[in-house]
């Protein structure tokens, strides 16, 4: 990936042409757009439901899934979707261990996560070698994404977003006020399970592009930024998706022209946006304070 920054001409039309000159880059941009839209939307619900830890655990489980599939000679996609779907079921099962409350739940999630990562390491060790492979499983690669992969991603994303649209309204209700929702007859337990499965699906698809350790950046940061800006669901979802898309495309473009990895650029851009929004809000609040609260 040593296409030097000097390749950048600062002429937007030429740079854009250069960016899409190779089919691998066009496919990377397409795949990036698909996973960003999916992660932005599902991440918004994840942040709303305060399930960042569960989301992170699901995303790292993609690693043993892929490593296990490689070891067993199965298709990689099967490993990703199998592991993340299975982990979603496990998390749903442990989310209420007897009498330990929320602390017990997070201990269980932590144990699942560490065990998953350990399992991944075992598989890689048994496969004996290819450290480059390990690195791209963990940190992703946007080289060599095939047109067939883009097609699969597209179908997964359409299915996931359709399912999310279907359960969106009751899920929102259940996420904002679980007690009231349950009293109103909303099946909150079932919705929670369905959402974890959707999250697993989205993570499995995204991890194939971003690597298991960096999925989380696309899930959590754009959504957290959007929820800083607006509490309204429609706008928040749109903003989260827009941000995820923007950081992915800009990150891919910068990585194309620079020697540094795309994961670094995507996480830095999204974190930069998050910090900027928080600072902006803090400044606004300070300015508004003398009016609102007389000293």
């Amino acid at each position, binding site marked *: 990936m040593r296409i030097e920054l000097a390749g950048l001409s600062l002429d937007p039309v030429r740079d854009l042409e250069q960016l899409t000159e190779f089919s691998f880059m066009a496919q990377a941009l397409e795949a990036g757009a698909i996973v960003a839209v999916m992660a932005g939307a599902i991440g918004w619900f994840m942040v709303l439901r305060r399930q960042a830890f569960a989301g992170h655990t699901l995303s790292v489980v993609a690693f043993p899934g892929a490593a296990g599939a490689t070891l067993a000679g199965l298709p990689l996609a099967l490993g990703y979707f199998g592991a993340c779907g299975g982990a979603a079921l496990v998390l749903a099962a442990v989310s209420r261990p007897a009498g330990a409350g929320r*602390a017990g739940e997070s201990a269980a999630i*932590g144990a699942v996560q560490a065990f998953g990562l350990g399992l991944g390491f075992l598989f890689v060790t048994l496969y004996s070698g290819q450290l480059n492979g390990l*690195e791209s499983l963990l940190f992703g690669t946007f080289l060599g994404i095939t047109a067939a992969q883009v097609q699969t991603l597209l179908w997964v994303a359409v299915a996931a977003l359709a399912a999310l649209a279907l359960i969106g309204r009751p899920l929102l209700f259940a996420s904002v006020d679980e007690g009231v929702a349950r009293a109103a007859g909303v099946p909150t337990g079932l919705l929670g399970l369905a959402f974890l499965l959707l999250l697993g699906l989205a993570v499995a698809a995204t991890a194939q592009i971003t690597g298991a350790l960096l999925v989380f950046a696309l899930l959590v940061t754009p959504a*957290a930024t959007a929820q800083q800006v607006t509490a309204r669901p429609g706008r928040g979802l749109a903003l989260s998706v827009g941000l995820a898309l923007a950081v992915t495309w800009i990150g891919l473009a910068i990585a194309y022209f620079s020697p540094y*990895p795309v*994961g670094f650029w995507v996480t830095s851009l999204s974190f930069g946006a998050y910090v900027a929004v928080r600072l902006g809000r803090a400044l606004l609040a300070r300015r508004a304070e003398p009016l609102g609260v007389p000293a």
Partner: protein
Amino acid sequence: MLAHEFMRNAYLAGSFVALACGLVGYFVVLRAQVFAGDALSHVAFTGALAAAAAGIDIRLGLFVATIAVALGMGLLGERARPDDVVIGSVFAWVLGLGVLFLSIFTSGSSGGDGTAAVRVLFGSILGLSAGDARLAAAIGLLASVALLAIARPLLFASVDPEVARGLGLPLRAIGVGFLVVLAVVAAEATQAVGALLLLGLMAAPGGAARLLTDSPWRGLALSAALALGAMWGGLALSYEVASVPPSFAVIALATGLFALAALHAKLRSSRPAEPLPAASRLSRIEA
């Protein structure tokens, strides 16, 4: 098995790492800060790779990075206790930085190779020299002693912060102090089981101890004992079965113990038990 020097070193360092992890892990679970521990373990990865990229001792990067982030989290926590989303946003970026350092390190003229990243991520307890092992043991012991020194007020502050505040305990200093000990233990455990797996050595024994007993002191001892058991058993297992890496064996045993504890708790709770009122829980700390 103990005739080999590398196994003796592994047992020496591993025992004290496990002791510290078990003690700290109990509080991590009790204070519902597992996600903070998760974040610190990823910070350890970035710190170690930054040091590797800069060509300095990896341990320096580990300790500086984790302690700095722990202080940051603790100080932010004064006004608004940093929630999962804030922690998540920060550590997603820290991981991105880690990737940057990894690429600088592997492409740098220092001639680094991919194995450094693997060692940091998944540990290298069988590769410790005698000096490394003694240092690791000393730091693990120090962290355990420091934690036990603040254990009493820390338990109080964790179980009932309102009452503790009313009694004039410096909650903020206790919270920051705990995060710093957690950071030291995380940096320490990275060398043994790796940045990605150390969470298991904290959360699983701590969670299991919480499930098995309501008494804080017994829980603390149990958590340390479970972590030690997982470490000793895991090292022995990886010695007997050469293809199983030690960090996986340790984490698998710790997770298995947690699963057994959860099963036990589930069976016990099918007979309805009387929940302890808060007052009697507090009196158990005093006991």
